Protein backbone atom coordinates (compact mmCIF):
# COMPACT_ATOMS: atom_id res chain seq x y z
CA UNK A 1 0.00 0.00 0.00
CA UNK A 2 2.73 2.48 0.96
CA UNK A 3 4.79 1.33 -1.96
CA UNK A 4 1.82 1.84 -4.27
CA UNK A 5 1.23 5.34 -2.92
CA UNK A 6 4.83 6.22 -3.66
CA UNK A 7 4.48 5.03 -7.23
CA UNK A 8 1.30 7.04 -7.56
CA UNK A 9 3.22 10.20 -6.68
CA UNK A 10 6.02 9.33 -9.08
CA UNK A 11 3.56 8.52 -11.84
CA UNK A 12 1.69 11.76 -11.33
CA UNK A 13 4.93 13.69 -11.68
CA UNK A 14 6.04 11.99 -14.85
CA UNK A 15 2.50 12.09 -16.24
CA UNK A 16 2.36 15.86 -15.71
CA UNK A 17 5.40 16.30 -17.91
CA UNK A 18 3.99 14.05 -20.63
CA UNK A 19 0.62 15.80 -20.42
CA UNK A 20 2.17 19.23 -20.97
CA UNK A 21 3.96 18.00 -24.08
CA UNK A 22 0.93 16.06 -25.31
CA UNK A 23 -1.20 19.22 -25.48
CA UNK A 24 1.08 20.61 -28.17
CA UNK A 25 0.60 17.51 -30.32
CA UNK A 26 -3.12 17.42 -29.88
CA UNK A 27 -3.71 21.13 -30.55
CA UNK A 28 -1.69 21.15 -33.73
CA UNK A 29 -3.42 18.01 -34.88
CA UNK A 30 -6.77 19.55 -34.05
CA UNK A 31 -6.19 22.62 -36.13
CA UNK A 32 -4.22 21.41 -39.16
CA UNK A 33 -4.64 17.66 -38.97
CA UNK A 34 -0.97 16.79 -38.87
CA UNK A 35 1.42 15.40 -36.28
CA UNK A 36 4.18 17.86 -35.56
CA UNK A 37 6.93 15.31 -35.07
CA UNK A 38 9.36 18.07 -34.22
CA UNK A 39 7.34 18.92 -31.11
CA UNK A 40 9.33 16.55 -28.90
CA UNK A 41 12.45 18.35 -30.02
CA UNK A 42 10.93 21.70 -29.16
CA UNK A 43 10.54 20.26 -25.67
CA UNK A 44 14.21 19.30 -25.82
CA UNK A 45 15.14 22.84 -26.90
CA UNK A 46 13.16 24.17 -23.93
CA UNK A 47 15.10 21.97 -21.58
CA UNK A 48 18.44 22.79 -23.23
CA UNK A 49 17.81 26.52 -23.11
CA UNK A 50 16.83 26.17 -19.44
CA UNK A 51 20.10 24.43 -18.75
CA UNK A 52 22.15 27.08 -20.51
CA UNK A 53 20.40 29.98 -18.80
CA UNK A 54 20.64 28.37 -15.36
CA UNK A 55 24.33 27.79 -15.95
CA UNK A 56 24.83 31.38 -17.06
CA UNK A 57 22.99 32.72 -14.03
CA UNK A 58 25.13 30.55 -11.82
CA UNK A 59 22.37 29.60 -9.40
CA UNK A 60 22.80 26.43 -7.41
CA UNK A 61 20.90 24.61 -4.74
CA UNK A 62 22.85 26.73 -2.27
CA UNK A 63 21.57 30.06 -3.57
CA UNK A 64 18.85 31.68 -1.52
CA UNK A 65 15.22 30.80 -2.11
CA UNK A 66 14.55 34.24 -3.50
CA UNK A 67 17.40 33.93 -5.97
CA UNK A 68 16.24 30.51 -7.10
CA UNK A 69 12.67 31.68 -7.67
CA UNK A 70 13.86 34.73 -9.55
CA UNK A 71 16.18 32.64 -11.69
CA UNK A 72 13.47 30.10 -12.48
CA UNK A 73 11.01 32.81 -13.47
CA UNK A 74 13.59 34.20 -15.84
CA UNK A 75 14.40 30.76 -17.21
CA UNK A 76 10.71 30.01 -17.84
CA UNK A 77 10.29 33.20 -19.83
CA UNK A 78 13.43 32.73 -21.90
CA UNK A 79 12.82 29.04 -22.56
CA UNK A 80 9.24 29.70 -23.63
CA UNK A 81 10.31 32.54 -25.85
CA UNK A 82 13.02 30.58 -27.63
CA UNK A 83 10.94 27.40 -27.97
CA UNK A 84 8.14 29.55 -29.41
CA UNK A 85 10.45 31.08 -31.97
CA UNK A 86 11.55 27.60 -33.02
CA UNK A 87 8.06 26.15 -33.28
CA UNK A 88 6.73 29.24 -35.02
CA UNK A 89 9.56 29.11 -37.53
CA UNK A 90 9.10 25.40 -38.15
CA UNK A 91 5.46 25.99 -39.03
CA UNK A 92 6.29 28.90 -41.29
CA UNK A 93 9.09 27.31 -43.27
CA UNK A 94 8.29 23.60 -43.16
CA UNK A 95 4.51 23.17 -42.85
CA UNK A 96 2.69 26.19 -44.20
CA UNK A 97 4.09 25.96 -47.73
CA UNK A 98 2.95 22.33 -47.81
CA UNK A 99 -0.59 22.99 -46.68
CA UNK A 100 -2.95 21.72 -49.35
CA UNK A 101 -0.29 19.39 -50.69
CA UNK A 102 -0.66 15.62 -50.35
CA UNK A 103 -1.16 14.37 -46.81
CA UNK A 104 2.20 12.74 -46.28
CA UNK A 105 4.20 15.80 -47.33
CA UNK A 106 3.98 17.75 -44.06
CA UNK A 107 4.59 14.53 -42.13
CA UNK A 108 7.85 13.92 -43.94
CA UNK A 109 8.73 17.56 -43.46
CA UNK A 110 8.01 17.22 -39.74
CA UNK A 111 10.33 14.26 -39.36
CA UNK A 112 12.95 16.27 -41.23
CA UNK A 113 12.49 19.18 -38.83
CA UNK A 114 12.86 16.85 -35.87
CA UNK A 115 16.21 15.64 -37.18
CA UNK A 116 17.31 19.18 -37.97
CA UNK A 117 16.63 20.31 -34.41
CA UNK A 118 18.34 17.31 -32.86
CA UNK A 119 21.40 17.60 -35.03
CA UNK A 120 21.60 21.34 -34.59
CA UNK A 121 21.58 21.04 -30.82
CA UNK A 122 23.94 18.07 -30.89
CA UNK A 123 26.50 20.00 -32.92
CA UNK A 124 26.02 23.37 -31.25
CA UNK A 125 25.97 22.01 -27.68
CA UNK A 126 27.97 18.80 -28.08
CA UNK A 127 26.42 15.39 -27.75
CA UNK A 128 27.33 14.69 -24.13
CA UNK A 129 24.55 14.68 -21.54
CA UNK A 130 24.49 17.88 -19.53
CA UNK A 131 24.28 17.16 -15.82
CA UNK A 132 23.58 19.79 -13.19
CA UNK A 133 23.46 19.96 -9.42
CA UNK A 134 19.96 19.55 -8.01
CA UNK A 135 18.46 23.01 -7.68
CA UNK A 136 15.39 22.24 -5.67
CA UNK A 137 15.99 19.79 -2.89
CA UNK A 138 14.22 18.49 0.16
CA UNK A 139 10.74 17.15 0.56
CA UNK A 140 8.25 15.66 2.95
CA UNK A 141 7.80 12.25 4.49
CA UNK A 142 4.17 11.42 4.13
CA UNK A 143 4.02 8.01 5.73
CA UNK A 144 6.32 5.60 7.39
CA UNK A 145 6.05 1.85 7.61
CA UNK A 146 8.30 0.12 10.10
CA UNK A 147 10.08 -3.14 9.74
CA UNK A 148 7.55 -4.74 12.06
CA UNK A 149 4.68 -3.67 9.84
CA UNK A 150 6.08 -5.50 6.87
CA UNK A 151 9.28 -3.85 5.78
CA UNK A 152 10.92 -0.50 6.27
CA UNK A 153 9.50 1.97 3.77
CA UNK A 154 8.90 5.71 3.69
CA UNK A 155 6.52 7.43 1.33
CA UNK A 156 8.10 10.69 0.24
CA UNK A 157 7.16 13.57 -1.93
CA UNK A 158 10.00 15.84 -2.91
CA UNK A 159 9.67 19.58 -3.22
CA UNK A 160 10.48 19.14 -6.86
CA UNK A 161 7.57 16.76 -7.32
CA UNK A 162 5.26 19.17 -5.54
CA UNK A 163 6.45 21.94 -7.78
CA UNK A 164 5.90 19.91 -10.95
CA UNK A 165 2.44 18.73 -10.00
CA UNK A 166 1.23 22.07 -8.68
CA UNK A 167 2.64 24.17 -11.49
CA UNK A 168 1.26 21.77 -14.09
CA UNK A 169 -2.12 22.05 -12.45
CA UNK A 170 -1.94 25.85 -12.46
CA UNK A 171 -0.67 25.99 -16.03
CA UNK A 172 -3.37 23.65 -17.29
CA UNK A 173 -6.08 25.60 -15.49
CA UNK A 174 -4.89 28.86 -17.00
CA UNK A 175 -4.59 27.21 -20.36
CA UNK A 176 -8.07 25.68 -20.21
CA UNK A 177 -9.50 29.09 -19.31
CA UNK A 178 -7.67 30.60 -22.24
CA UNK A 179 -9.14 28.07 -24.63
CA UNK A 180 -12.65 28.07 -23.16
CA UNK A 181 -13.16 31.69 -22.17
CA UNK A 182 -11.22 34.05 -24.40
CA UNK A 183 -11.76 35.27 -27.96
CA UNK A 184 -8.38 33.82 -28.84
CA UNK A 185 -9.40 30.39 -27.58
CA UNK A 186 -12.70 30.65 -29.39
CA UNK A 187 -10.92 31.47 -32.63
CA UNK A 188 -8.64 28.52 -32.03
CA UNK A 189 -11.56 26.15 -31.52
CA UNK A 190 -13.40 27.61 -34.51
CA UNK A 191 -10.42 26.95 -36.79
CA UNK A 192 -10.23 23.46 -35.40
CA UNK A 193 -13.88 22.75 -36.20
CA UNK A 194 -14.13 24.48 -39.59
CA UNK A 195 -11.17 26.45 -40.86
CA UNK A 196 -12.92 27.87 -43.88
CA UNK A 197 -15.91 29.04 -41.88
CA UNK A 198 -13.61 30.67 -39.36
CA UNK A 199 -12.02 32.69 -42.14
CA UNK A 200 -15.48 33.61 -43.47
CA UNK A 201 -16.17 35.13 -40.07
CA UNK A 202 -13.03 37.23 -40.21
CA UNK A 203 -10.58 35.04 -38.34
CA UNK A 204 -7.03 35.21 -39.63
CA UNK A 205 -6.45 31.48 -39.87
CA UNK A 206 -2.71 31.64 -40.51
CA UNK A 207 -2.24 33.76 -37.45
CA UNK A 208 -4.36 31.45 -35.34
CA UNK A 209 -2.29 28.47 -36.47
CA UNK A 210 0.90 30.33 -35.57
CA UNK A 211 -0.52 31.09 -32.13
CA UNK A 212 -1.36 27.42 -31.68
CA UNK A 213 2.26 26.48 -32.37
CA UNK A 214 3.42 29.14 -29.93
CA UNK A 215 1.08 27.97 -27.16
CA UNK A 216 2.18 24.37 -27.67
CA UNK A 217 5.82 25.44 -27.56
CA UNK A 218 5.31 27.35 -24.29
CA UNK A 219 3.85 24.29 -22.58
CA UNK A 220 6.59 22.07 -24.01
CA UNK A 221 9.30 24.49 -22.87
CA UNK A 222 7.86 24.48 -19.39
CA UNK A 223 7.85 20.68 -19.46
CA UNK A 224 11.46 20.82 -20.63
CA UNK A 225 12.46 22.89 -17.62
CA UNK A 226 10.61 20.55 -15.27
CA UNK A 227 12.30 17.57 -16.87
CA UNK A 228 15.71 19.17 -16.36
CA UNK A 229 15.01 20.01 -12.73
CA UNK A 230 13.54 16.59 -12.01
CA UNK A 231 16.26 14.46 -13.57
CA UNK A 232 19.05 17.03 -13.26
CA UNK A 233 20.29 16.16 -16.71
CA UNK A 234 19.40 16.88 -20.28
CA UNK A 235 20.77 16.16 -23.73
CA UNK A 236 19.96 16.64 -27.38
CA UNK A 237 18.09 13.34 -27.63
CA UNK A 238 15.53 13.56 -24.80
CA UNK A 239 12.91 14.88 -27.20
CA UNK A 240 12.73 11.64 -29.10
CA UNK A 241 11.37 9.25 -26.49
CA UNK A 242 9.53 11.87 -24.45
CA UNK A 243 8.01 13.13 -27.68
CA UNK A 244 6.81 9.72 -28.74
CA UNK A 245 5.39 9.04 -25.29
CA UNK A 246 3.58 12.36 -25.26
CA UNK A 247 2.29 11.65 -28.74
CA UNK A 248 1.07 8.31 -27.46
CA UNK A 249 -0.60 10.14 -24.60
CA UNK A 250 -2.35 12.43 -27.06
CA UNK A 251 -3.63 9.49 -29.10
CA UNK A 252 -4.60 7.62 -25.96
CA UNK A 253 -6.62 10.58 -24.71
CA UNK A 254 -8.24 11.09 -28.10
CA UNK A 255 -6.23 13.10 -30.57
CA UNK A 256 -7.55 16.65 -30.83
CA UNK A 257 -8.90 16.68 -27.28
CA UNK A 258 -7.05 18.88 -24.80
CA UNK A 259 -8.42 17.27 -21.62
CA UNK A 260 -7.72 13.97 -23.36
CA UNK A 261 -4.07 14.89 -23.77
CA UNK A 262 -3.78 15.71 -20.07
CA UNK A 263 -5.47 12.50 -19.08
CA UNK A 264 -3.46 10.47 -21.60
CA UNK A 265 -0.25 11.96 -20.21
CA UNK A 266 -1.18 10.91 -16.70
CA UNK A 267 -2.11 7.41 -17.81
CA UNK A 268 1.13 6.91 -19.75
CA UNK A 269 3.18 8.27 -16.85
CA UNK A 270 1.37 5.95 -14.44
CA UNK A 271 1.78 2.89 -16.64
CA UNK A 272 5.46 3.55 -17.06
CA UNK A 273 6.08 4.05 -13.35
CA UNK A 274 3.87 1.19 -12.18
CA UNK A 275 5.35 -1.20 -14.66
CA UNK A 276 8.86 -0.29 -13.59
CA UNK A 277 7.91 -0.67 -9.95
CA UNK A 278 6.14 -4.00 -10.11
CA UNK A 279 7.58 -5.72 -13.16
CA UNK A 280 10.72 -4.69 -14.94
CA UNK A 281 12.25 -1.34 -15.71
CA UNK A 282 13.63 -2.63 -18.99
CA UNK A 283 10.18 -3.20 -20.40
CA UNK A 284 8.54 0.04 -19.27
CA UNK A 285 8.49 1.54 -22.75
CA UNK A 286 7.17 -1.68 -24.21
CA UNK A 287 4.37 -1.58 -21.66
CA UNK A 288 3.49 2.00 -22.49
CA UNK A 289 3.32 1.34 -26.19
CA UNK A 290 1.42 -1.91 -25.74
CA UNK A 291 -1.27 0.12 -24.09
CA UNK A 292 -1.28 2.43 -27.10
CA UNK A 293 -1.77 -0.47 -29.46
CA UNK A 294 -4.58 -1.88 -27.33
CA UNK A 295 -6.35 1.45 -27.23
CA UNK A 296 -6.00 1.90 -30.96
CA UNK A 297 -7.54 -1.51 -31.53
CA UNK A 298 -10.36 -1.41 -29.01
CA UNK A 299 -10.97 2.34 -28.62
CA UNK A 300 -9.75 4.05 -31.77
CA UNK A 301 -11.40 7.29 -30.60
CA UNK A 302 -9.20 7.39 -27.53
CA UNK A 303 -10.37 7.88 -23.97
CA UNK A 304 -11.94 11.29 -24.50
CA UNK A 305 -12.35 11.17 -28.27
CA UNK A 306 -14.86 13.65 -29.54
CA UNK A 307 -18.40 12.50 -29.86
CA UNK A 308 -19.53 13.91 -33.19
CA UNK A 309 -23.10 14.88 -32.60
CA UNK A 310 -23.94 16.58 -35.84
CA UNK A 311 -27.28 16.66 -37.51
CA UNK A 312 -27.89 17.45 -41.11
Amino acid sequence: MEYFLQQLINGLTLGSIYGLIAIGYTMVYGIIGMINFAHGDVFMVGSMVSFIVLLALGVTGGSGAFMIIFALALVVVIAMLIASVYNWTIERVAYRPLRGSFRLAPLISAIGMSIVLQEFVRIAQEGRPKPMQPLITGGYELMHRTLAEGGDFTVKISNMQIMIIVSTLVLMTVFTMLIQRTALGRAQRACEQDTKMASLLGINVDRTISITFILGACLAAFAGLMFLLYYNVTDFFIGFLAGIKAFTAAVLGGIGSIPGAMLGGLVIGMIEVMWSAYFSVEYKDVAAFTVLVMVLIFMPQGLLGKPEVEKI
Partner: protein
Amino acid sequence: MSEILLQGKGVETFYGKIQALKGIDFEVRKGEIATVIGANGAGKSTLMMTICGTPRARAGTIVLDGKDITQMPTHEIVHLGIAQSPEGRRIFPRMSVFENLQMGATVDKLRHFDEDLAKVFALFPRLEERRNQRAGTLSGGEQQMLAIGRALMARPRLLLLDEPSLGLAPIIVKQIFAAIKKLNQEEGLTVLLVEQNAFHALRLAHRAYVMVNGKIAMSGTGAELLKSPEVRAAYLEGGH
Protein backbone atom coordinates in the same frame (compact mmCIF):
# COMPACT_ATOMS: atom_id res chain seq x y z
CA MET B 1 -31.61 53.43 -58.81
CA SER B 2 -29.29 53.22 -55.86
CA GLU B 3 -25.52 52.85 -55.96
CA ILE B 4 -23.79 49.61 -56.80
CA LEU B 5 -22.53 47.81 -53.69
CA LEU B 6 -21.05 44.72 -55.25
CA GLN B 7 -20.05 44.20 -58.84
CA GLY B 8 -18.47 41.25 -60.60
CA LYS B 9 -17.04 41.32 -64.11
CA GLY B 10 -15.94 38.28 -66.09
CA VAL B 11 -15.45 36.24 -62.91
CA GLU B 12 -13.91 32.82 -63.54
CA THR B 13 -13.27 30.22 -60.86
CA PHE B 14 -11.63 26.83 -61.12
CA TYR B 15 -11.40 23.75 -58.94
CA GLY B 16 -8.14 22.36 -60.18
CA LYS B 17 -8.73 22.01 -63.89
CA ILE B 18 -12.51 22.08 -63.65
CA GLN B 19 -13.98 25.47 -64.42
CA ALA B 20 -16.99 26.20 -62.23
CA LEU B 21 -17.56 29.87 -63.13
CA LYS B 22 -17.15 30.77 -66.78
CA GLY B 23 -17.13 34.54 -66.83
CA ILE B 24 -19.87 35.88 -64.59
CA ASP B 25 -21.11 39.48 -64.66
CA PHE B 26 -23.39 40.62 -61.89
CA GLU B 27 -24.20 43.51 -59.62
CA VAL B 28 -25.97 44.09 -56.36
CA ARG B 29 -27.21 47.57 -55.51
CA LYS B 30 -27.43 49.06 -52.06
CA GLY B 31 -30.59 48.19 -50.19
CA GLU B 32 -31.85 45.55 -52.57
CA ILE B 33 -32.35 41.82 -52.48
CA ALA B 34 -30.64 40.14 -55.40
CA THR B 35 -31.03 36.48 -56.09
CA VAL B 36 -29.25 33.82 -58.08
CA ILE B 37 -31.28 30.78 -58.99
CA GLY B 38 -30.23 27.71 -60.91
CA ALA B 39 -30.09 23.95 -60.85
CA ASN B 40 -27.85 21.92 -58.61
CA GLY B 41 -24.24 22.19 -59.77
CA ALA B 42 -24.78 25.41 -61.73
CA GLY B 43 -22.11 27.18 -59.72
CA LYS B 44 -24.18 29.27 -57.32
CA SER B 45 -22.29 28.32 -54.17
CA THR B 46 -19.01 28.74 -55.98
CA LEU B 47 -20.04 32.28 -56.82
CA MET B 48 -20.86 33.02 -53.18
CA MET B 49 -17.54 31.63 -52.02
CA THR B 50 -15.59 33.39 -54.77
CA ILE B 51 -17.03 36.71 -53.61
CA CYS B 52 -15.42 35.91 -50.25
CA GLY B 53 -12.15 34.92 -51.87
CA THR B 54 -12.25 31.18 -51.15
CA PRO B 55 -11.62 29.89 -53.78
CA ARG B 56 -10.13 32.96 -55.40
CA ALA B 57 -11.24 34.04 -58.86
CA ARG B 58 -8.68 33.19 -61.49
CA ALA B 59 -9.92 35.88 -63.87
CA GLY B 60 -12.21 38.89 -63.71
CA THR B 61 -12.74 41.40 -60.94
CA ILE B 62 -14.98 41.70 -57.94
CA VAL B 63 -15.49 45.17 -56.55
CA LEU B 64 -17.14 46.04 -53.24
CA ASP B 65 -18.21 49.65 -52.95
CA GLY B 66 -15.46 50.83 -55.29
CA LYS B 67 -12.78 48.64 -53.74
CA ASP B 68 -11.27 45.75 -55.70
CA ILE B 69 -11.44 42.71 -53.45
CA THR B 70 -10.57 40.04 -56.01
CA GLN B 71 -7.15 39.25 -54.61
CA MET B 72 -7.79 39.93 -50.93
CA PRO B 73 -7.54 37.23 -48.27
CA THR B 74 -10.91 36.01 -47.05
CA HIS B 75 -10.68 37.40 -43.53
CA GLU B 76 -9.91 40.85 -44.90
CA ILE B 77 -12.81 40.75 -47.36
CA VAL B 78 -15.31 39.97 -44.64
CA HIS B 79 -13.90 42.76 -42.52
CA LEU B 80 -15.09 45.10 -45.27
CA GLY B 81 -18.65 44.15 -44.44
CA ILE B 82 -19.62 40.93 -46.21
CA ALA B 83 -21.12 38.15 -44.11
CA GLN B 84 -22.13 34.77 -45.41
CA SER B 85 -24.48 32.09 -44.25
CA PRO B 86 -22.94 29.39 -46.38
CA GLU B 87 -24.24 26.27 -48.03
CA GLY B 88 -24.54 23.50 -45.45
CA ARG B 89 -24.78 26.09 -42.62
CA ARG B 90 -21.36 25.29 -41.26
CA ILE B 91 -22.19 26.18 -37.69
CA PHE B 92 -19.52 25.15 -35.19
CA PRO B 93 -21.02 21.92 -33.85
CA ARG B 94 -18.98 21.69 -30.64
CA MET B 95 -19.66 25.24 -29.60
CA SER B 96 -22.78 26.51 -27.91
CA VAL B 97 -25.33 28.61 -29.76
CA PHE B 98 -24.08 31.59 -27.80
CA GLU B 99 -20.46 30.97 -28.74
CA ASN B 100 -21.41 30.60 -32.40
CA LEU B 101 -23.00 34.03 -32.20
CA GLN B 102 -19.89 35.39 -30.49
CA MET B 103 -17.88 34.04 -33.39
CA GLY B 104 -20.22 35.87 -35.74
CA ALA B 105 -19.37 39.12 -34.00
CA THR B 106 -15.64 38.71 -34.70
CA VAL B 107 -15.70 41.37 -37.41
CA ASP B 108 -17.52 43.76 -35.07
CA LYS B 109 -14.99 42.92 -32.32
CA LEU B 110 -17.97 42.31 -29.99
CA ARG B 111 -18.50 46.07 -29.77
CA HIS B 112 -22.28 45.93 -30.23
CA PHE B 113 -22.61 42.38 -29.03
CA ASP B 114 -25.46 42.73 -26.52
CA GLU B 115 -27.52 44.93 -28.78
CA ASP B 116 -27.06 42.65 -31.80
CA LEU B 117 -27.66 39.54 -29.75
CA ALA B 118 -31.00 40.95 -28.64
CA LYS B 119 -31.90 41.64 -32.28
CA VAL B 120 -31.01 38.15 -33.41
CA PHE B 121 -32.96 36.63 -30.52
CA ALA B 122 -35.94 38.81 -31.39
CA LEU B 123 -35.74 37.58 -34.98
CA PHE B 124 -35.27 33.93 -33.99
CA PRO B 125 -36.66 33.34 -30.48
CA ARG B 126 -35.79 29.66 -30.82
CA LEU B 127 -32.14 30.54 -30.58
CA GLU B 128 -32.63 32.25 -27.26
CA GLU B 129 -34.29 29.14 -25.85
CA ARG B 130 -31.31 27.09 -27.05
CA ARG B 131 -28.66 29.59 -26.15
CA ASN B 132 -26.44 27.23 -24.15
CA GLN B 133 -27.07 24.12 -26.21
CA ARG B 134 -24.33 22.62 -28.34
CA ALA B 135 -24.99 23.82 -31.86
CA GLY B 136 -24.37 20.35 -33.30
CA THR B 137 -27.45 19.06 -31.50
CA LEU B 138 -29.84 21.66 -32.96
CA SER B 139 -32.43 20.66 -35.53
CA GLY B 140 -31.83 21.55 -39.17
CA GLY B 141 -34.09 24.58 -39.03
CA GLU B 142 -32.51 25.85 -35.84
CA GLN B 143 -29.07 25.43 -37.35
CA GLN B 144 -30.16 27.49 -40.32
CA MET B 145 -31.42 30.23 -38.03
CA LEU B 146 -28.13 30.11 -36.20
CA ALA B 147 -26.16 30.39 -39.43
CA ILE B 148 -28.16 33.46 -40.45
CA GLY B 149 -28.04 34.93 -36.97
CA ARG B 150 -24.29 34.42 -36.82
CA ALA B 151 -23.88 36.25 -40.13
CA LEU B 152 -26.01 39.13 -38.83
CA MET B 153 -23.83 39.50 -35.74
CA ALA B 154 -21.11 40.85 -38.02
CA ARG B 155 -23.32 43.89 -38.87
CA PRO B 156 -22.72 43.30 -42.58
CA ARG B 157 -23.39 45.75 -45.38
CA LEU B 158 -23.97 42.77 -47.62
CA LEU B 159 -25.49 39.51 -46.46
CA LEU B 160 -24.86 36.40 -48.57
CA LEU B 161 -27.38 33.63 -48.04
CA ASP B 162 -26.74 30.29 -49.71
CA GLU B 163 -29.89 28.15 -49.86
CA PRO B 164 -31.34 29.09 -46.49
CA SER B 165 -34.42 26.98 -47.23
CA LEU B 166 -32.63 23.74 -48.06
CA GLY B 167 -34.11 20.72 -46.35
CA LEU B 168 -36.46 22.70 -44.12
CA ALA B 169 -40.15 22.25 -43.43
CA PRO B 170 -42.37 24.71 -45.35
CA ILE B 171 -43.36 26.56 -42.20
CA ILE B 172 -39.74 27.20 -41.28
CA VAL B 173 -38.98 28.26 -44.83
CA LYS B 174 -41.73 30.84 -44.53
CA GLN B 175 -40.29 32.13 -41.26
CA ILE B 176 -36.85 32.44 -42.77
CA PHE B 177 -38.01 34.28 -45.86
CA ALA B 178 -40.12 36.58 -43.71
CA ALA B 179 -37.03 37.32 -41.64
CA ILE B 180 -34.99 38.15 -44.75
CA LYS B 181 -37.69 40.47 -46.02
CA LYS B 182 -37.94 42.20 -42.68
CA LEU B 183 -34.20 42.77 -42.48
CA ASN B 184 -34.20 44.25 -45.95
CA GLN B 185 -37.18 46.51 -45.47
CA GLU B 186 -36.64 47.65 -41.92
CA GLU B 187 -32.88 47.76 -41.72
CA GLY B 188 -32.10 48.41 -45.37
CA LEU B 189 -29.83 45.39 -45.41
CA THR B 190 -28.52 44.42 -48.83
CA VAL B 191 -28.93 40.71 -49.52
CA LEU B 192 -27.61 38.34 -52.14
CA LEU B 193 -29.70 35.19 -51.96
CA VAL B 194 -28.98 31.89 -53.66
CA GLU B 195 -31.89 29.52 -53.93
CA GLN B 196 -33.11 26.39 -55.60
CA ASN B 197 -36.48 27.31 -54.21
CA ALA B 198 -36.94 29.73 -57.11
CA PHE B 199 -40.50 30.80 -56.45
CA HIS B 200 -39.89 32.25 -53.00
CA ALA B 201 -36.63 33.83 -54.04
CA LEU B 202 -37.98 35.52 -57.15
CA ARG B 203 -40.96 36.91 -55.30
CA LEU B 204 -38.64 38.53 -52.83
CA ALA B 205 -35.94 39.73 -55.20
CA HIS B 206 -35.51 43.15 -56.78
CA ARG B 207 -32.88 41.73 -59.11
CA ALA B 208 -32.46 38.17 -60.24
CA TYR B 209 -30.01 36.03 -62.17
CA VAL B 210 -30.45 32.56 -63.59
CA MET B 211 -27.31 30.51 -63.63
CA VAL B 212 -26.74 27.56 -65.92
CA ASN B 213 -23.49 25.66 -66.08
CA GLY B 214 -21.25 28.33 -64.68
CA LYS B 215 -22.76 31.16 -66.74
CA ILE B 216 -25.48 33.74 -66.28
CA ALA B 217 -28.22 32.61 -68.65
CA MET B 218 -30.78 35.28 -67.87
CA SER B 219 -31.29 38.30 -65.68
CA GLY B 220 -33.98 40.81 -64.81
CA THR B 221 -36.19 41.86 -61.96
CA GLY B 222 -37.66 39.13 -59.82
CA ALA B 223 -41.10 39.83 -61.24
CA GLU B 224 -39.87 39.62 -64.82
CA LEU B 225 -38.23 36.26 -64.30
CA LEU B 226 -41.28 34.95 -62.48
CA LYS B 227 -43.29 35.63 -65.63
CA SER B 228 -40.70 34.30 -68.05
CA PRO B 229 -41.84 31.07 -69.73
CA GLU B 230 -38.32 29.58 -69.72
CA VAL B 231 -37.90 30.17 -66.05
CA ARG B 232 -41.35 28.82 -65.31
CA ALA B 233 -40.67 25.69 -67.30
CA ALA B 234 -37.23 25.05 -65.86
CA TYR B 235 -37.55 26.11 -62.24
CA LEU B 236 -41.14 26.63 -61.23
CA GLU B 237 -43.25 23.87 -62.77
CA GLY B 238 -44.60 21.44 -60.30
CA GLY B 239 -44.55 24.64 -58.29
CA HIS B 240 -44.61 25.57 -54.68
